[in-house]
Structure formats: structure tokens, C-alpha cells
């Protein structure tokens, strides 16, 4: 079936290295999100899988076939481009039906599929329009509908929901997930929006600077980030990092001590929701500088010693800016990193 094997794929543009030996396996029917900051090589990797860019090294295997020598049209894929690439000289309906018409499908079938895809993307009323008369978000949905209409075995999407308002994005996300699951479409989905990746993907591959830092289920990556970068990139507010020194298996933060995986300098990764605010006498001493009511909780910004930290408190907690409180971390949910390499340290 249509699984994807990306095997040590590398890409350089002249002297600039965009991808360094990236390997990734996507099982048949699986939804994998490529998540990473701007410029980390997500689009480049997707374009190599699509056959629009030639890799400098490595190979791509789709459904058991090495597709290195195949043109894009022979790879059994559909793609949503980051800048939409909606054909300006065709109406919305002709755009969505383009792939099916190229496959010489019967007219009725094309019309049916176009109608279905348009309905799902909520653009049925726009079918007769020209792309020049569409908003950015509408154009983006045309691009998604065009890819879904061909019911591909492999679907490559490059930030397909980036231009939609928050509510519509949430709806589309759910619809997309349901449709792709039902059709069993193998999906590689590029995004820099971590909530989107967490919500949609079976597995997330976090990319940074042309390498995949970690691959895993959303929950696993969130709870046990393999590197400091992954911890900081996932989650809102981002994970806090506290540098401390450990001896005798215990790391000291102020007067508070925690079991540490190794002696010497270690870095504690602490998510805001993994520490409970308590009285100033216990826990990690935390000087609150700003209190922001977020509705569901209070977002506290301040410092531990001279290291910045964000924490959350229940919405009705009486915490004033300038106060010192204590934070009691949940020992089971802590991450430790090597301050030099940024790699995760496992408890011995």
C-alpha cells in the first residue's frame, strides 16, 4: 500500500544545507505532521517527496517503489502548496476538478467529486467564481479541495489551514481528520502551528535546522521531549528551563532540592501546568512580576533567582504582582536536559 519511506534524504542549495540526512517512515494510512519553525526545511522535504525537488542524497520510497526517478505525476500523490498555486485561468470548479480531468474520469464523476470536496471545504457557493475574486482563505480552501478531490493514496499538505480564521481552522481540522481517516489516506502535513500538529497527527516529527529532532505520538513528545528545542517548541506557554547544579543525585533550586539524573550542571525542563502554586515557604521560590488573567487560568510571569519562568495558577488564586510564592513540581512530569548538548537526560 501507500506507505512512505524517507531514507537519509539530504538537500543542499549550493553551500546552504537545507536538510541533513533526514529519515522518516510514514505507515499506510498514517497522519504524520512535520512541525518546526520557519526555514527549518519542512517545505523542502515535502517537495522532495513530491518530486519537485531532487535530493542531494538518500532515497524516497512510496508504496514499495523507489520514486527517485519518477516524475510527480507518476508518484500517486496530491499536494497542497504553501502559496496555494490555484490556477488563475480556471474557475473554482475547474480548479478542483483539474486532477480528475487529467485522469480522464467520466464527467459525472468529476462533477460529483468536485461537489463533495467543495462542500467539505464550505466553498460550494464559490464554484463559478474566478480565483482573482477570492479571499486568501477561500483560495487556500480551493487548493485543499483540489487535492482531496483526486482521493490520492498519499496526500502532501504544506500549511493548508494557515490562512483561515481561528474558528474555521478548528472546524476544518476536525473535518480533515475525519475524512482522511475514513479514506485511509497516508498524509504528510507541514505546519508550524503546534496545536494543529498535536490535534491532527498520529505522530509528529519535530524539525529544527534541517534535522528531525524527535518523532513520536503527540502526547509522548509533549511529555518527554528528546531535546531542549522540542520542549521549548511544543506547549503554550513554552516549557521553562532552569539551570541548576546537582550533587549527590539532587539538584538545588534555591532552598528546594529535586532528584536529578546526573551530578554537575543540569537543566530542568518544567511545564507551567506541572507545578502547583503553594505557600512561599515550600517548593521552588518564584518571584511573580506580572499576572495575566487568561480566563481558564492565571498566567504568572516572573523569575526563579535570575532565571525567567512562567507558571499558571487557578483563576481565583489571590496572587499579586511582586509576591513571592512557591511552586511544587510534579516529580513524575519533569524533564532533564544536558545544558551543553540540549539532549534529554534519563533518570538513572
Amino acid at each position: 500500500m501507500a506507505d512512505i519511506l524517507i531514507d537519509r534524504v539530504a538537500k543542499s542549495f549550493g553551500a546552504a544545507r537545507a536538510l541533513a540526512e533526514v529519515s522518516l517512515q510514514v505507515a499506510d494510512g498514517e497522519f504524520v505532521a512535520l512541525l518546526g519553525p520557519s526555514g527549518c526545511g519542512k517545505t523542502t522535504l515535502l517537495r522532495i517527496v513530491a518530486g519537485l525537488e531532487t535530493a542531494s542524497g538518500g532515497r524516497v520510497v512510496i508504496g514499495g517503489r523507489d520514486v527517485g526517478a519518477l516524475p510527480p505525476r507518476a508518484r500517486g500523490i496530491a499536494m497542497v502548496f504553501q502559496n496555494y498555486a490555484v490556477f488563475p485561468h480556471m474557475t473554482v470548479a475547474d480548479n478542483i476538478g483539474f486532477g480528475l480531468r487529467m485522469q480522464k474520469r467520466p464527467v459525472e464523476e468529476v462533477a460529483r467529486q468536485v461537489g463533495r470536496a467543495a462542500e467539505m471545504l464550505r466553498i460550494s457557493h464559490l464554484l463559478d467564481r474566478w480565483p482573482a475574486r477570492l479571499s486568501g482563505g477561500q483560495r487556500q480552501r480551493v487548493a485543499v479541495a483540489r487535492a482531496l478531490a483526486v482521493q490520492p493514496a498519499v496526500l502532501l499538505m504544506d500549511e493548508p489551514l494557515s490562512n483561515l480564521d481561528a474558528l474555521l481552522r478548528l472546524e476544518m481540522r476536525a473535518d480533515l481528520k475525519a475524512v482522511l481517516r475514513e479514506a485511509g489516506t497516508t498524509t504528510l502535513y507541514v505546519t508550524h502551528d503546534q496545536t494543529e500538529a498535536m490535534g491532527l497527527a498520529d505522530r509528529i516529527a519535530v524539525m529544527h535546522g534541517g534535522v528531525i529532532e524527535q518523532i513520536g505520538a503527540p502526547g509522548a513528545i509533549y511529555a518527554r521531549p528528546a531535546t531542549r528545542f522540542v520542549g521549548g517548541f511544543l506547549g503554550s506557554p513554552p516549557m521553562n528551563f532552569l539551570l541548576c547544579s546537582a550533587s549527590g543525585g539532587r539538584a538545588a533550586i534555591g532552598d528546594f532540592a529535586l532528584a536529578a539524573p546526573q551530578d554537575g550542571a543540569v537543566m530542568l525542563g518544567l511545564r507551567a501546568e506541572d507545578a502547583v502554586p503553594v505557600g512561599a515557604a515550600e517548593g521552588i521560590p518564584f518571584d511573580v512580576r506580572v499576572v495575566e488573567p487568561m480566563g481558564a487560568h492565571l498566567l504568572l510571569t516572573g523569575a526563579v533567582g535570575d532565571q525567567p519562568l512562567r507558571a499558571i495558577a487557578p483563576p481565583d488564586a489571590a496572587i499579586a504582582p511582586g509576591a513571592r510564592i512557591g511552586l511544587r513540581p510534579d516529580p513524575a512530569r519533569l524533564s532533564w536536559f544536558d545544558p551543553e548538548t540540549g539532549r534529554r537526560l534519563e533518570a538513572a
Partner: protein
Amino acid sequence: MNPAMTPVRRLLFWTLVAVLLLWVLLPIWLVAMGAFGGRAAVFQWPKSLLPASLSFDHMAAFLAVEGVANAFLNSVIAAAVTVVLSVALGAPAGYALARYAFRGADAFKLLVLLTRAFPLAILALPLAVGFIRIGLYDSPFGVALMHTVLALPFAVLVTQSLFMGIPRELEEAAWVFGCSPVQAFFRVVMPLALPGLAATAIFAFVISWNEVFAASVLTVRERTLTAYLLAVLSESPLHTRFAGGLLLILPSVLFVFAVRKWLFTVWGISGR
């Protein structure tokens, strides 16, 4: 036109339109009057803007002159071949320059432009000798080859910027959704490039239609219309010259009219 225009702006707008129309149409009108207005009207001064009498005699007489019809036909053939060759050779070159980075691209562009750096006189005479040798001399096709050389630099450079303006992703999307590169070109790039290609065709047509020097040197009996008129008109009466002038103007105008639909194609904004 914008319906929200104030009356003053509307007045300005239509004045400008009128001036432009006069600028273009008045000379053509006067030439037409000279050609169809009867013998007296040619010498009348000041000119009246309406014909006193309408007569097709001059035109008929002019068209009946030995060689006019043939010269007209030769001009049409030369111009048509020039248009076809300029677009067929220029567009692929422009496409290659726009889409592929290859060694010597800049040198190639310079070379294309350099063909225009030689005075025609220098090119035409050796060409005449060469054409005589290979049997292209005194034929509209030989003239068309020469005119293609004149029109090609323009065709290459215009189509290059034209293709550069069409996002590569559109082509890539076509590839992904089942097109071969050739299909993608004809289904996606060509339709979007039509206005520019039409402009390129017009320019090639006009270059060929108006060119007189090379056409005169490269032909003897099979003259193009311009070359023929240049040779004949100085000895003709004034009204015959007007008839010839009109015959020179009209095809260009008709050609522009024929391709104007593609010249102004903006997808989804003005429809087709």
C-alpha cells in the same frame, strides 16, 4: 469605468479618451479621405472632414495596377511567417531563460540583442548573396527570415519576462495533478501567457509589415508591399499614394483587432 467618478473626473476622462482617439484616428481618416474622396478632395484646402463625394475609383485603379495584388500577398506571407517563426522560436528561448539557470544564459541574451547592433545594411547585402546561393532570394520566405531576425530579440526578451511572471508553482501543481511538462505548458502556462504572446505577435507583424530596406534588397520581382510602394509611389499621382498608404495601414489595424481579445485577457476580471 469607475461609477464613483465625480463629474469633473468624468469630463477629464472622456476628454482624454477623445484626444487619444483623435490622435490615432484622424491621420487614418485623412488618408482614407484622400483615397476615397475623389480627385478634387485630394487637392482641396482646407480639408473638409466629410467626403464631398465617395469614389472607389482610385482604390480600384490602384489595386488593378500590375503587381500591387502580388506585393500585398507577399507582404501578408512575409508577415505571417515572421509572426509564426518569432513566436515559435522566441517563446521557447524566453521560457528557457525564465525557468532554467544555465551556464551562459547572460551571454546568450547579449548575443540575441547583438543581432540588433548590426546595421541592416551590413546584414542585408551579404544575406542577399547568400540567399541567391541557396535559392531563397526574391521570395517572401527569404524576407520573412530576415524579419524574424529583427523581431526575435524582442520576442525572446518579452516572453522571458512574461514567463518569469507566471509562478513556477502553478506549473508544479499541474505536474502533481497529472500533467507532463508539455501538457502543463499548454494547459497552464500558455493560457496565462496569451496576452504577452499576442503583444509579441503584434510586434513581429508590425516589424515585418513596415520593414522596407531589407525587403527591397532581398527581392526584385516578388516585392513586399512596402518595397513595392517605395519603388513605385514617387512617380504616382497623389490620390494613388493615398490609396497605397491606406492599404499599408489597414492590415496592421485589422491584425491588432484580431488578437485584441487575447491582448486583454485577464482571467476572471474581464472574463474572456
